[in-house]
C-alpha cells in the first residue's frame, strides 16, 4: 500500500503556515483600524496605523483572489 506521506506533510505544513499567517495578518489589520480610532482621539500616529491596516487587508484580499483563482483554474 502506498501512502503519500510527502503530500500529506506538505498539506499540513502549507495549511499551518498559510492559516496562521493570514489570520495573523488580518488581525494586525483589524487592530490597526481600531488603533486608528483611538489615535484619532489624540494619541499615536493615525497615518501609520491606517496604512498598516490597509496593507494587511490588501495582502489578505490578494490571498482570497489567489484562492478563487485556484478554484476556478482547476
Amino acid at each position: 500500500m502506498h501512502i503519500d506521506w510527502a503530500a500529506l506533510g506538505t498539506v499540513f505544513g502549507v495549511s499551518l503556515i498559510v492559516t496562521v499567517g493570514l489570520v495573523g495578518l488580518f488581525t494586525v489589520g483589524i487592530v490597526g483600524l481600531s488603533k486608528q480610532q483611538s489615535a484619532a482621539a489624540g494619541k499615536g500616529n493615525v497615518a501609520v496605523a491606517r496604512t498598516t491596516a490597509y496593507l494587511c487587508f490588501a495582502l489578505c484580499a490578494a490571498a482570497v483572489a489567489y484562492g478563487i483563482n485556484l478554484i476556478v483554474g482547476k
Partner: protein
Amino acid sequence: MEHITLLLAIVVVTALVFDFTNGFHDTANAMATTISTGALKPKAAVAMSAALNLVGAFLSVEVAKTISGGIINEKGIRTEVIFAALVGAILWNLVTWLLGLPSSSSHALFGGLIGAAVMSAGWSSVNGSTVVTKVLLPAVAAPIVAGVASMLATRLTYRINRNTDEKATAKGYRAGQIASAGLVSLAHGTNDAQKTMGIITLALVTGGVLHPGANPPMWVIVSAGMAIAMGTYLGGWRIIRTMGKGLTELAPPQGFAAQSGAATVILASSHLGFSLSTTQVCSGSVMGAGLGRKGGVVRWSTATRMFIAWGLTLPAAGLVGAGAEFLTGQGTWGVVLVAILLIAGSGFIWKLSRRQPVDHNDVTATVPPAESPAEPAGVVTTAIAAVTPPPTVAAVAADLTATIPAPAPVAPADPARPATV
C-alpha cells in the same frame, strides 16, 4: 432523449436527489460558524452559500472522470450499481442529518459504491488499499491538520488583539469570516456539483446515450447546479446547530480563525494532491478554534458521536447499497421496489424530523442540556443513545425495516457476509 430508459431516468433523478442532500448536509461547512458568531443572519447565510454553490457548479469545466477515484473497479460498472450506491448514500445522509451529525457526503457515496460493487461483482472489485489512503487516513488526518492550524491561528489572533476592545474588532472579524465562508461555498459547488455531473454523465455513457469521453450536456450541468444550490438554501439546520453551537461556543475571532483555517486546508489539500473531506476539515477547524481560546471547551461527547458517525459512514452506506443492489439485480421490479423503498425511507426520516423541527429561527439558540446535541424525544433520542457502533447500525436498519413492509435492506445484506469472512 429517446434512448433514455426507465432505469436511466431513475438513476438521473436519484443522482440529483443525492446532490440535493449533499447541498443541505454541507451548508454547515461554510455557514455554521458564520451563523453562530452572528456574522450573517441565518437566511442570508444560506442564500449566499446557495448562490456561490450555483456559481461554483458552472466554474469548472473539468468533470470528474471517475465516481470513486479508484476505490472500486469501474470498468463495465452497471447502471444498477450506481443507482444502488446512490440509495445507500442518500439514506445515510438523511440519517446523519436527522441526528444532526456532520459527516462526509463523499464518503457516504464511496460506502454505497463499495457495498453495491461487492454485491454485484464480489470483493475483488474493491481496491482495499485505496480505501485506506483515500477514506480512512484522510478521516484521521483532516481534523488533525485543520484543528492544529485553526488552534494556533486562534491563539495568535487572541494574542495580537489582547489590548484592543472586543467590540471594536468584532465587525472586522465577521467581515473576514464571511469572505472565508464564501471561499468554502465556492469550492464546495465546484467539487461536489462536479461529482454529480460525473455520475450522471457516467450513467448516460453506460446507458449508451452519450459516447464515452463526452462532456456533460448542458441540462446535466444546470440541473446538478440547481439541485445542490436548492439543497444548500434549504439549509441543514440540525447540522448547522451542531457545528456552530454544539461542538463548542465560538466568539467572532474564533469563528474567523476556524473558517479561514477550513478554507485554507480545503484549498491546500485539493491542490497538493491529498484530498481531505470538506466536512471533516470544517469540524476539525471548529474544534481547534474552540481549544485555541483560553477557557474554551470542546464538548467531547458531541465530538465523539460525530467521530462514530464518520466511522460508520462506510459500513452503513455500504450495507444499504449492497441491499439495494441485491434487489435491483432481481430485475425491473427490484429497481422499482428500491425506488419505492427510498422514497418511503426518506419520507419516514423526514416525518421523524418533524417531531422536533430545527429551523432558521432556533438554529442559534443555545444547545439545551450542555452535553447533548439537543435532539427530540422518542425514537430519535433512543437512536442517539444507541450511538455505539453496533446498535446504531441496528437502529438505522430498524428505521428502515420499520418503514418498509419487506425487510429488504437488512436481509439481503446477510448473504454478503459469508464472502466477507
